[in-house]
Structure formats: C-alpha cells, structure tokens
C-alpha cells in the first residue's frame, strides 16, 4: 500500500501539476491537494486549498526567522516544507502584482481570530517577494522587542531613548542571512559615526554597517536604525523594491512590560528599535509595500477576545496605520480542511486507526472547528 501511494504521489507531481480539481479522475483522491507549482508568482485561484513545496535550502535562505515554531517542527519531521495556498494570500499577491511602485507604499494589515493562519500568509507573501527579487525586511515578532528584555542601555544617539543590544544583534544576524546579495550592492549615502573613533564612510556597502552592528553589540540598535533609514531613502529613489513585513505590529503602539532602572514603565516610543520601525511603517516613501500582521497571542495588556484592528492597535496605532488595506483571515473552508487532513494522512502524521475513518474525520472537524492551529494540536497525539 505504501508503494501505491508513492507512485500516485510522484505521478501527481510530474503530470498533474496545475490541473484544476474537476479534471482529476476519481481514483486519484490523494494527489488533489498537492501542487507542483513552487513559484508563488504563478499561484492563482485554481491552486486554492492546495499545498506547495518550498525546497529546504530556500527555506533556510529566505526564512532564517519568521516561521512559527510548530511549522519548523513539522518541516523537520516530514523533511519538507509545505505551505497551503489560501484566499487571503492570493488576494495580497494580486494586490502586490498590480501595485504601482511609484506611488507611496500601501499598507496591508492581516487580521483574524487566533490560529487562523496570519503568520503563514505573511510568510507566503515574503516568499513571493524574495523570489521576485525584492529586498525583504522581515521582523518575525515585534512583541519580542517590547517584553522580556534583559539588557536596556541608554542610547548614545538620543539621551531619552533606550537601546536593546541583544534583540538588535539577533535581528541583524538573521537579516544578513536572508539578504546577502543586497548588502553588497547598496551603498551608504552619508557618513555615520559610531562613538568617538569608529565611523562608516559615505559610499561603503551596507554590509559594513551590519558587520559593525554585529561586532560592536552596544551600537547594534543604532546600526538597525541606519539600515532602515538607508533602505527607505534608496527605495524612494527607485533603485530597489522593498517589502517591510512586520508580524505583531500592534506591539509598536501598545504598552511594554519593560522598566527603567528607577522602576518607571517604558513606553514603546522610547525604544530605539520601535521608534525606527514606526518611521518605517509610515507611508511617506515609495517603491515597495508594507505588509503587517496583528497578533493577540504575544500582545501585552490586551484581552484575549480582541482580534479586530481597532481593538488591538488602539487609537494611537490605528491613527498611525490609517489608511490601510485590511485582509481578514478565516478558518479553513471545507475544501482546505479536506486538503490538510489528506496531507496529514499521506505523511503518516495521523497514526490512530480511527483517524482514517469518516467518524474520525468528522470528529476532528468538529473538535477543531476548522481552525488550523486547533487541528494541528489535535492531530499531534493522534
């Protein structure tokens, strides 16, 4: 039975590819939910509900950070990275394909209930943009910058602000892995001083700024600020296309759990990283797009029932992000559920004997409520 499945699978990958559902004969139910189209640019409605494969080297290059933890575990167990093509992602891709890069950057906010696939939609879009040759500025989770920070230094650039060397250096390292080739091409526009003795001259490649930030951890946050400012100016000129992808953008305008040494609370605006990111998310530059995700799970001081943009961003954040294009993400449609269930069966993830029956499938659908995260959690022990 194992060989039968393998033969069908390879046939599906080679022969069927992007054939629509009606043409597939009834005796090949397993192949329906896969598609061999691994370039997100060619994804369209006929691929909706199907899973496409991202080669593992590309995963390491494009997503050094940013994939959810459970998805990374799944990649390791199944030895492949399969992402489902869903309607919100297709919508975003059509908008990006038709966007005019001479106009100011459009802001897209992906919102939805908990566990519906907002981060995965963002990753799909990031993969598309990196395939198209855009420079991707991916911040995996803005909430990590406003909580659990062990070291807070007073910024040397501006006395009121606070630096976060650890978070900034981690982000710079991941940024370097994902955008190696751009760092050599882009040149700095003016001279930057790091403290009294070190400086970066005008016209040096941006890679040097990143190296400086990684070597001197104290000035890592300033290095991040310099990188963001340079990229904004250069994309405004039109030489490169920039995608700013922020996950958990509601962290930038909320409250933080950090405290200064005199135990007074820190507002996110006082952190250099958050300040620079807020400038980045403003639509006063052109030549790219800003795709953001709201997230309640990591958010601070927000009730767990809040999932709309107004509730999570607050007045300040909503005014700052206004106008934006909202993209709602919902639970799995019946077709998407079938596809996910079939994929788990095929990869031998659902091992329980009863999970293969109709009763088991109905029970899984009922218990998870077609929510992707609940389905993943339920299918784990089964």
């Amino acid at each position, binding site marked *: 039975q194992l060989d039968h499945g393998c033969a069908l699978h390879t046939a599906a990958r080679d022969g069927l590819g992007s054939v629509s559902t009606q043409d597939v004969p009834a005796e090949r139910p397993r192949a329906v939910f896969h598609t061999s189209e691994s370039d997100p640019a060619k994804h369209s409605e006929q691929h909706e509900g199907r899973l496409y494969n991202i080669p593992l080297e590309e995963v390491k290059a494009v997503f050094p950070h940013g994939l959810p933890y459970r998805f990374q575990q799944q990649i390791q167990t199944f030895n492949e990275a399969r992402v489902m093509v869903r309607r919100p992602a297709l919508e975003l891709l059509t908008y990006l394909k038709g966007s005019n890069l001479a106009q100011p950057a459009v802001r897209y906010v992906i919102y939805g209930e908990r566990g519906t696939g907002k981060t995965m939609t963002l990753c799909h879009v990031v993969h598309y943009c990196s395939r198209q040759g855009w420079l991707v500025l991916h911040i995996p989770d803005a909430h990590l910058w406003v909580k659990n920070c062990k070291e807070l230094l007073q910024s040397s650039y501006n006395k009121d602000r606070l630096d976060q060397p650890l978070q900034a250096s981690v982000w710079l390292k991941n940024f370097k892995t994902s955008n190696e080739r751009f760092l050599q091409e882009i040149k700095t526009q003016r001279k930057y001083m790091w403290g009294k003795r070190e400086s970066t001259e005008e016209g040096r490649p941006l890679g040097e700024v990143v190296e400086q930030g990684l070597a001197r951890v104290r000035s890592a946050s300033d290095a991040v600020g310099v990188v963001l400012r340079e990229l904004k100016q250069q994309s405004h000129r039109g030489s490169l296309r920039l995608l700013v992808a922020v996950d958990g953008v509601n962290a930038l305008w909320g409250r933080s759990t950090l405290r200064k040494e005199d135990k007074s609370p820190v507002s996110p605006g006082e952190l250099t990283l958050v300040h620079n990111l807020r400038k980045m998310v403003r639509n006063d530059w052109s030549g790219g797009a800003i795709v953001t995700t709201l997230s309640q799970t990591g958010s601070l001081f927000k009730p767990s029932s809040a999932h709309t943009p107004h509730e999570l961003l607050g007045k300040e954040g909503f005014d700052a992000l206004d106008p934006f294009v909202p993209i709602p993400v919902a639970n799995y449609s019946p077709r998407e559920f079938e596809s996910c269930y079939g994929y788990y069966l095929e990869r*031998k993830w659902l091992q329980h004997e009863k*999970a293969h029956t109709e009763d088991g499938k109905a029970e899984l659908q009922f218990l998870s409520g077609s929510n992707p995260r609940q389905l993943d959690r339920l299918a*784990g*022990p089964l």
Partner: protein
Amino acid sequence: RIMPVRWSRYNPSYLEPEVKKESYQKPLEELTEEEREQMELKAVRPIKAAPPTLSSSVFSDPMISKFTNMMMKSGNKVLARSLMSQTLEAIKRKQLEKYHKAPENEKETIECNPYVIFHQALKNCQPIIGLSNITKGGKTYQVPVPLTDNRKRFLAMKWLITECRENKHRRTMMPEKLSQELLLAFNNEGPVIKRKHVLHKMAEANRAYAHFRWW
C-alpha cells in the same frame, strides 16, 4: 457531613449511561430480547450522571485515561492530559524521523503508531508474579504470589511514572523522559524492564516460601 468518595451513594435503581453511538443507531428489529427489555427499562428508570472520564470520542482509550489519572497531581487533569498528548506526539515524531531516514527494507519494521507503542511497552513492563509480605511465627517473609490483571497494569504504570519522576535529570521535561522510557520499554530494554526482571528473580529465589500462601 461526610461526602461519599469511594462507594457510590446512588439508589440501586439508577442505571449506567450508554455512550457508544453504535448502540443508538441499531434499528428496532435487530435488538435481542434482553436489549428490548433494557430499552424499556431505560425509559422508566433514572440514569446516573456521566463521569468526566467517560467519553464518546472514537479516539478515547481507557488505558491512556488511567495512565493520565496516575500522572495527575492535586487534581490538575488539564496539565496531565496535555503532558500525555505531548508524550504521544514526541514518540510519533521520533519514530517518524527514524522512519524517513531508514532504508526501504527496514521501513516496515519501524512502528510509528504511538498507541501501539504505548500498549506494547506497558505489556512488556507487566510482571507475571509478585511478592507479598506474610507474617508467620513472628517473622515476615516475602512470598511469591500470582497477580491479578489490574494489579499488573497498575504496577507497570506506577513503575514507569516513578522511574521518570525520580531517576532523571531535574531539568528534562516529562514528555521527553516518558517518550524515551516508553520507547526503551517497547524494545524490552531500559530500567523499568530491569526492575520487572529483578522482581521475577526475587520471586524465583523465594520459591521455598510459596506454600505460606493460603489463597
């Protein structure tokens, strides 16, 4: 007032609740005489409240529930159940990784179903014969004694849990420890199997006292 904990205070007229879906889907003609009587009785008699462990889910397993109850501390069933599901998932992941890396001819020998592994591991850990303390003439002797099925299952589960709780590094998580122990027990290796063998050897050594048993 003392609340009844161990023995039920229900009136004997109360009947047990029926959870299985199949019994309600049978048409009237297929029922035997006894089942028809039972149905008539159910229409008249009151029914006991269903206990929280009773489930109509197709995925529920009485052994797994018993094990979860034994792992539970101070009534925290939520934590115990989540630990159990994480353990099963950990076993599945380890076995699937091994499966995908193995060559074609060995793939069929690798068992990936965590439930099969759990049941087989428990069966391998169950002792056949136990020891009990019998006092005769002022001295206590360890006498070999046959064990009931329930006692065997209980001992196997108890040994697994105590082994994981006590003899491992303090910082390892319970699912990790448990999945390791279950996989070793599945292959008839590991400290729990050793403990079972030690018990068997003690019983064999004390064979002479077997006639002290009077039941």
